[in-house]
């Protein structure tokens, strides 16, 4: 995973709540067996509309998505994170994220930032009046800043450290193989196994 320390870019306002992962990427785009190429499915149904914010020329180069509450509800598809990343997004800001989407994003290095809805509204206003507004998301200081405004956000120390170091979760867990071994040695015998197959 790529390290994430700080990102500066322009932002795109997505004034919708409950943007579920079927909207982020419809199921029909989930057939690929790779982790790349999902940008064509990102918000596929909405992108047919020339008025849709991603189609507006002033927001063409945005790398920060600023969305309404309950972003990423529904399906566990990590393809939603890949689609956003493949399209070029580095950060998504919202007042509330669905749990699984949030977990997926932070595993994959797409920084999801939770800000109070008033702060989200303020960013929407700023980037709608000036789409070239430069926004910096700094993991070191856990802040989002633009113009003269700086807003702090929370992220637990462990996740922050892992993102800043670009660490692979599996590698970290494998350091504790001894603990896993001893846990397994004590598992009760009645716990079910899938093999050998019983019919």
């Amino acid at each position, binding site marked *: 995973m790529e390290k994430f320390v700080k990102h500066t870019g322009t932002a795109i306002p997505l*004034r*919708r*709540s*409950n943007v*579920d992962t*079927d*909207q982020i990427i*419809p*199921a*029909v785009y*989930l*057939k*690929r*067996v790779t*982790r790349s190429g999902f940008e064509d499915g990102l918000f596929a*149904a909405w992108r047919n509309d020339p008025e849709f914010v991603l189609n507006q020329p002033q927001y063409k180069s945005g790398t920060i998505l600023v969305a*309404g*509450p*309950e972003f990423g*509800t*529904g*399906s*566990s*598809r*990590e*393809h939603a*994170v890949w689609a956003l990343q493949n399209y070029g997004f580095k950060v998504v800001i919202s007042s*509330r994220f*669905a*749990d*699984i989407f949030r*977990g*997926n994003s932070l*595993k*994959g290095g797409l920084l999801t930032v939770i800000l109070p809805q008033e702060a989200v509204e303020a960013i929407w206003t700023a980037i709608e009046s000036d789409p070239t507004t430069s926004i910096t998301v700094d993991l070191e200081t856990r802040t989002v800043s633009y113009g003269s405004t700086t807003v702090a956000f929370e992220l*637990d*120390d*462990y996740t922050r450290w892992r993102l800043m170091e670009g660490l692979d*979760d*599996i590698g*970290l*867990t*494998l350091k*504790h*193989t001894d*603990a*896993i071994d001893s*846990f*397994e040695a004590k*598992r*009760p*015998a*009645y*716990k*079910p*196994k*899938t*093999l050998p197959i*019983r*019919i």
Partner: protein
Amino acid sequence: MGKTLAEKIWEDHVVRSAQGEPDLLYIDLQLVHEVTSAQAFDGLRLAGRKVRRPDLTIATEDHNTPTLDILKPIADPVSKLQIDTLRNNAKEFGIRIHSLGDADQGVVHVVGPQLGITQPGMTIVCGDSHTSTHGAFGAIAFGIGTSEVEHVLATQTLPSSRPKTMAINVEGTLKTGVTAKDIILAIIAQIGTGGGQGYIIEYRGSAIRELSMEGRMTVCNMSIEAGARAGLIAPDQKTFDYIKGKPHAPEDFETAQKYWETLFTDSDANFDVEITLDGNTLEPFVTWGTNPGQGLPLNASVPNPADIKDSEERGAAERALEYMGLTAGTPLKKIAIDTVFLGSCTNGRIEDLRAAASVIEGKKIAPKLRMLVVPGSERVRQQAMKEGLDKVFLDFGAEWRNAGCSMCLGMNPDQLAVGERSASTSNRNFEGRQGKGGRTHLVSPLVAAATAIRGTLSSPADL
């Protein structure tokens, strides 16, 4: 102080805990399907890693599979590649797989319980948000993304921060015609799509205890639609009886049951949040909008967004009505339906098919309406055929299909056309969920069946 059921199970699975880090949780079972696993297996190969416990892993094909001509080669080459990739990965990594045509193929959350490998006190994961279904057995079961699928394949553990606990108490006796589906749709309408965020929900109360195991699965299945990490129900005699005799029931059943009987919330335990719902007054429930929280009793009318105070919710309602092609004030029962879908991990089990069949038996389908009946698994299909239910559906004018996720998610050939309106026993009414431009009303199997007879959203009481 006592512990909640979720806390007991969680604590039994902590491999390692350290200050400031998520708990490392042992996973008793991982279910695998074709859509969210290919990239995980690729990751293992790239890193030269193996599957740590193939014997705690099981795969089936469900999301991307056709429900017609299942033994012919899959027509869409991209879909075929995804299915073939799962088959090859299962072979390479030594994982049990139930492929199309196999007696145990089917929707992953129907397959686990019917094999008896879903048991109380377990931790169960799958790259699918409806993994919460297995919580009906008193297990902590939750959906994960592909990176986590890979993590569990490699280590049989998952770093997870401990969720908060929520109790939802449903007391009372359900009226005739009111089902588990109506309970969960009413709960989601009450607490919203984000109401359960960060929580494991425990469903409690007499109305929940009265539900069959399959009804409990329907309730737990849609926990994710309320945003919850997982949903569960304490196991009881019904749970033990359901598992007994299943292929993977414990050989030492007595010892297992002794442990299972300790799995309940202590009387002096505290939940972070408690919510109560009156089971006596519940009505059949349907959704009118584009998220599962936008639901109302069937006797109600399409809401007027102008009456909604919260501006965010009002905007969402306006967009939903536009997408759904509905006018405020229209009685829900006047909404004409094009397609009825009976199936999915929410309502594709044998009791669901029986319930719908009992309503339509001897009747004829409404003109121009199509009804798809898709058993949740091949075993369910076989059982239904043994009971003659296939004939009931076919005589009625419905299509009788093979097992799979089918029209629940608009990925395989079973999809709605643009503007087509469905009454669906599945779990999501998102825009385009059942096919681009399709319009979905979520309903129970009883409402689905009555709707197929009348052609408009209806309950059996309307017949």
